[in-house]
C-alpha cells in the first residue's frame, strides 16, 4: 500500500469513528460522548501521557529502553514547581525540562557508558526521582523557609508566580463561539464535529500546542533528517551504524537526554494544570506513556492515537459515569458491523466455496459476535449506573480491548534494550 493510501485509510477510519460516536450519542442521548468539554478534558489528560510516550519513543528508537520515564517526570514536576513559583511559567518550563533531561543523562551514563541493563537503570531512576524530590521538599519547603511562607508544604510547592497563557480559536471557539452554538444544537454529526473541534481549540494551554507540535516534529526529525536516520540506526543495528562512522554513543546520549527532557516536559504540563507542584501528581503516567508508545508501535502517530484513546476514556469517565455505559452500545455496534461485514464476505458471489472460509470456527466466531452484541445491548439497556470502580477503569479496559482486537503486529526497534559496546559486534 502506498503512503497516500495509508493516509486515506486513516482519514476514513477517523470519519467512521466520528460517525459511530455520533450515532451512539444520538441513540443514548449522552451528549458528553462528543461534547467539547470531553474533548478538551481528553486533551488535558492525553498531553502528559503523550509527552511521556514521546520520551519513550526517542529513547527506544535509539535502542535504549526507558522504564525510568516516571522518575524523570517526577523530577520535571518538582523543578517546574520550584522554578515556577520564583520566576514564573517560562522558568518552570525550562527547569522541568532540564530536570527531566538530567534524569535522562543519568540513565544514559548508566546504560550507554557502563552498559548496565536498561531496565535496572530505569527502575533505579524510578526510585530516585520520588526520593530526591521528597528530600528536596523536606529541605527547601520545610517550615520557616521563604517558600513555606508563600504556601509551600512538604507535599506542595507554592503556586507558580505566573501562568502559561491559554489561547482559543478566534470567532469559532471564543467570542461568538460559533462552534459552541453549533454543538449545543445537538444535531446528528454536525454538532459532534463541532464539539470535537471546539474541545480541541477552546482555551488551549500553549504547552498543549507545543506538545502536539512535538509529534509531527518528532516524526520529521526521526524520519526525514540525517540525525533522525542515525538515531534510528542506533536502535536498529548500532554495529552497522558504527561501521559507517556514526558515533553511536553520542547519538544514544542525545536521544536519552531528549527522552528525559520530554518526560520532564510532561511533568511541567501537570504542574501548569495544577499551578503548583503536588507530590505524587504523576500517578504512574510515565508507565501509561510507555504503554501508549508500545500501543502506537513505536511511532508518533500511533503513540498519539494511544494517548488520545486513554485521555478520551479518562476524560469521559471523569465527566460522566452515564456516558461510560454507552460504550456497551458502541461495542454492540462494532460487533454488528463486524458480523455484517463477515456475512457479506461469505455470501458475496464469485467466491470459491472452499475459500469463503466456512469452517466451524468461523461460524462460532460469528455466533459469538452476535450473542456478544445482544448482551451488550441488553447491558446498555439495563445498567444505568456502574459501580464507580468499574467506571474508573474505563481507559485501561478500553486500551486492553483495542489491543486484543486490533491484532497489529508490533515491531519494536531491533536493538531496543540491547547492551551495545563499541567494537564488540555480534
Amino acid at each position, binding site marked *: 500500500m502506498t503512503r497516500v493510501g495509508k493516509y486515506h485509510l486513516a482519514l476514513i477510519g477517523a470519519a467512521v469513528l466520528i460517525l459511530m460516536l455520533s450515532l451512539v450519542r444520538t441513540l443514548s442521548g449522552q451528549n458528553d460522548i462528543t461534547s467539547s468539554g470531553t474533548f478538551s478534558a481528553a486533551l488535558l489528560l492525553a498531553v502528559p501521557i503523550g509527552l511521556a510516550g514521546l520520551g519513550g519513543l526517542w529513547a527506544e528508537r535509539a535502542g535504549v529502553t526507558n522504564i525510568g520515564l516516571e522518575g524523570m517526570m517526577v523530577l520535571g514536576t518538582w523543578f517546574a514547581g520550584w522554578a515556577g513559583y520564583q520566576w514564573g511559567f517560562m522558568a518552570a518550563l525550562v527547569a522541568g525540562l532540564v530536570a527531566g533531561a538530567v534524569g535522562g543523562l*543519568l540513565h544514559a551514563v*548508566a546504560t550507554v557508558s*557502563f*552498559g*548496565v*541493563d536498561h*531496565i*535496572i*537503570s530505569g*527502575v*533505579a*531512576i*524510578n*526510585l*530516585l526521582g*520520588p*526520593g*530526591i524530590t*521528597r*528530600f528536596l521538599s*523536606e*529541605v527547601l519547603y520545610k517550615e520557616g523557609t521563604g517558600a513555606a511562607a508563600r504556601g509551600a508544604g512538604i507535599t506542595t510547592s507554592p503556586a507558580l508566580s505566573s501562568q502559561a497563557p491559554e489561547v482559543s480559536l478566534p470567532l469559532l471557539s471564543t467570542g461568538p463561539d460559533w462552534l459552541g452554538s453549533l454543538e449545543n444544537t445537538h444535531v446528528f454529526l454536525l454538532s459532534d464535529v463541532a464539539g470535537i473541534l471546539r474541545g480541541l481549540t477552546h482555551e488551549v494551554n500553549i504547552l498543549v500546542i507545543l506538545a502536539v507540535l512535538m509529534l509531527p516534529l518528532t516524526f520529521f526529525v526521526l524520519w526525514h533528517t540525517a540525525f533522525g536516520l542515525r538515531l534510528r540506526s542506533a536502535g536498529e543495528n548500532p554495529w552497522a551504524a558504527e561501521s559507517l562512522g556514526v558515533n553511536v554513543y553520542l547519538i544514544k546520549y542525545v536521544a536519552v537526554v531528549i527522552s528525559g527532557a520530554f518526560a520532564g516536559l510532561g511533568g511541567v504540563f501537570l504542574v501548569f494544570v495544577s499551578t503548583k507542584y503536588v507530590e505524587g501528581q504523576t500517578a*504512574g503516567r510515565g*508507565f*501509561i506513556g*510507555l*504503554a501508549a508508545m*508500545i*500501543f502506537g508501535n513505536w511511532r508518533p502517530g500511533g503513540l498519539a492515537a494511544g494517548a488520545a484513546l486513554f485521555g478520551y476514556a479518562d476524560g469521559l469517565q471523569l465527566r460522566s459515569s452515564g456516558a461510560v455505559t454507552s460504550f456497551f452500545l458502541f461495542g454492540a455496534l462494532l460487533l454488528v458491523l463486524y458480523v455484517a461485514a463477515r456475512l457479506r464476505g461469505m455470501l458475496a458471489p464469485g467466491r470459491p466455496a472452499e475459500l469463503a472460509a466456512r469452517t466451524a470456527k468461523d461460524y462460532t466466531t460469528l455466533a459469538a459476535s452476535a450473542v456478544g452484541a445482544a448482551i451488550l445491548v441488553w447491558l446498555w439497556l439495563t445498567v444505568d449506573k456502574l*459501580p464507580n*470502580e*468499574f467506571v*474508573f*477503569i474505563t481507559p*485501561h*479496559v478500553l*486500551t*486492553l480491548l483495542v*489491543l*486484543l482486537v486490533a*491484532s497489529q*503486529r*508490533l515491531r519494536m526497534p531491533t536493538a531496543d534494550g540491547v547492551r551495545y559496546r563499541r567494537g564488540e559486534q555480534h
Partner: protein
Amino acid sequence: MPAGLYRALLTVAGAAVAIVLAVVISSVAISAAGASPLDAFAALFNFGETERQVVNGITTMVNRSVPLFIAGLAVAVGFRMNLFNIGVEGQYRLAAICAAWVGAQFTAPPLIQILVIIVVAAAVGGLYALIPAVMKVTRGVNEVIATIMLNYIAINLAAFLVRGPFTGERAAGQLTTSTPQIPESGWFPNLNWIFEMFGMPAPRGGGLWGFLLVAVLLGVGLWLLLERTRFGFDVKASGLNASAALASGVKPKKMVISAMVLSGAIAGLIGLPEILGDKHSFGSNFTPGLGFLGIAVALLGRNKPGGIAIAALLFGFLDRAQGPLQFADVPPSVITIMQGTIVLLVVIANEVTRRIALRREERRAARHLGANTPVEVTA
C-alpha cells in the same frame, strides 16, 4: 587463585565499593540538609538501647524483607524468561483480598486453614497473571502494557470487593474498610521463640512473622526448580535464546504461560505475611507498592534466589531506619535515595567486575590452549 573464588571476591569487592559510594552520596545529601551524616549512619545501625528495642528493630527489618523477598522471586521468574511482569503489583493485591476473604469464611484446623489460604492466594495470583499470558500468546499483546493496565484494574477490583461483596463487619466509628477477620486458626504462628531461645524478650505484637519459613522454603524450592530441573532448564533456555529453545522442542507459548502463572502465583503470596501474621484481614491500609519494589529487589539480586534474599534484607535494613533517622533529625527520604543509588551503583559495579573477570578468564583460556607460536614461512 581459582576462577570461582576470584570472581566471588571481585563481586564482593565491587558491591562494597558501590555501597561505600552510595554512602558518600547520601552523606553529601544529609549534610546538605543540615544534618550530620555520622548521626544518620549511627541511626542506621543503632537498633536501640534496650534488648526489647533491638528485638523490635530486627523484627521490623526481617518482617519488611519477607514480602520484598517474595516479590523479588515473583518478578525474577518472569525476568529469567525475558518476560517483564510489571503486574506483580496487581496480582498480589487481588490475591491478598481473595485469600483473606476465603480464609475468613470457615474455620478448620490451623494447618488446613492456613494451607487453604495460601493455595487460594497462589491460585488467584496465578490466574490473574494468566490473563496477560494468554493475551500474549494468542494475540501477541505486549505483556508490559497488559500488566500495567491490569494493575489499575486490580486496584479497582480490590476496592470494589473490599467495599462490596467481601466487606466485613466494622466497629462503630471505624473508618477502615476490611474483609472479615480470619479466625485464629488461620493466624500464622510467629517465630518469637527464636528470640526467646537466646534469652531475649519477644518482639512486638505481630512478632517475627512465621511466614518467613514459607518464604525460605519458597526460595529454596524455586532455586531447585530453576537450577536443577528440566523446567528450569527450559526457562533458562527460553530466556537466553528463544529460537534455540524452540528448535530444541521447548514450546514457547507453554513456557510463557507457565512462567507467567508461576510468577503470578508467587506474587499472590506477597501479601500473606502481613495478613496471616499481623492484620488478619485485607483492609484499605494494606501495604501497596511491594510489586514495584520487587522489581528493584529482583534486579539487585540478579534474579537469583540467594541474591534476592540479600537484596531484600538490605532493603529491609534500610527501611527499618525510617523512624530512627527522624529521631536523629535526618529527613527519612534519604533512605529512598540510598536504595536508588545502591541499585544503580551495584549493577554498575557488577558490570565493571564482570568485564574484569571475563578478561581474566579469556586470558586463562588462551593460556590453556597454548600460545600462538610463530610458524615457518613456507613459500
